[in-house]
């Protein structure tokens, strides 16, 4: 299915604490790449860089960066107060499967709503290397 799109937003996220296991970021990537939904052709990422008519929208970029950063800072502040997972009776810090499920369902619902509204997504993740390297690999 092909249709015109006027804008593309590329968001790059990393773990707030670099000591967090990479597998957690990978789990987030998995949730945003659900089996039930075809996201996009990954090779299309090169179109952003190759297309001669592509221009950065700096004003929107500044606003979007600020929006994303402030949203995450607020969440970090709230989590610092009371949301940190505590060790169980045996000293293990285990996540709650029901909380994971609820969050994943939220992600699925959001993706479905956005797709219905005409948005499209491409998701990448790398445990080693930066976005530039990922995009370079995709191009090849």
């Amino acid at each position, binding site marked *: 299915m092909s249709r015109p799109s006027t804008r593309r937003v590329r968001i*790059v996220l990393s773990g707030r604490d670099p000591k967090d296991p990479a597998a957690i*970021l990978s789990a987030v*990537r998995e949730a945003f790449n659900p089996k039930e939904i075809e996201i996009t052709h990954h090779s299309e990422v090169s179109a952003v860089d190759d297309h001669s008519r592509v221009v950065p929208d700096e004003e929107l970029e500044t606003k979007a960066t600020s929006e994303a950063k402030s949203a995450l800072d607020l969440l970090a502040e709230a989590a610092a107060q009371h949301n940190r997972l505590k060790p169980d009776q045996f000293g293990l810090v285990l996540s709650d499967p029901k909380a994971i499920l609820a969050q994943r369902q939220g992600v699925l619902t959001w993706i479905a709503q956005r797709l219905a509204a005409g948005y499209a997504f491409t998701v990448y993740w790398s445990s080693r290397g930066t976005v530039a390297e990922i995009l370079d690999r995709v191009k090849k």
Partner: protein
Amino acid sequence: MQETGRYISERAADLRALAELPRFAQIALAARLCQRALSRQRSLGLYEAIRQLAAGERSSSLEPHLSDLRKYIAELDERGREPNDDYPAMWRADALKGVLQCVDAVPMLLSDSKERRSAGCDEVVQGAHRIASEQNLTSTTMITQHFWTIVPLLHDLDLLKLLAQSEQWDDLTPVDVDVLGAPFSVATYDLKAWRDAYIESNEPTGDSELVIEIDVPESATDDDVLQTVREFVELADGLHRAYGGTGLDVKTVECFENMNVLAGGPR
């Protein structure tokens, strides 16, 4: 102590629920067990091969990775037989035989025969207990085995059960082992060998990055774009924290204008 013993046997019995999972979720659990039980150096190929099978890639083969493990077990067995009584080597060899048991179960889990699949589940459960027994022998209290093998495994099992039910997985649904998150979470007990093995399998995030590109429809306003960005980062952050992480940070946000792209949609 009696109460703890009862807790352990009850939770160990819960492992039998493995038989209720769809096929590829069962294989994902076997992959997880191998990921935790082997050091990173030895598990990488084997774990990746099982992981690919769980993801539905039938061409993945376990055999090339097994020969290295079998050789290592033979070396440990040999050391255990020497007069210096190298008990840890003996125990380690036995635990690795538990890993082999789990790996051998994978083709059984892929079988169409109900009996063979059921036998495969039994093998994985027995393998898990065998792996756990090494920790039992190398620690001072009997419950430690559950800190390191059974409890995290049951945690994975609970999550897989919930996901299978909620996302309506069946025997044909491939499972990405990544869905289970980090193989190990911080523990307060100092069981050096096992702790090291777990930490090895917990590569730090470091420079890892999650990248999402969102193609915005023509009808969307700037405010719609900002709302989409905010909702995305909030959802990603919430999920990261639910998996036990400390949340996410924005590295960059870039916006581009005027292009034609292929768009995805529901299948």
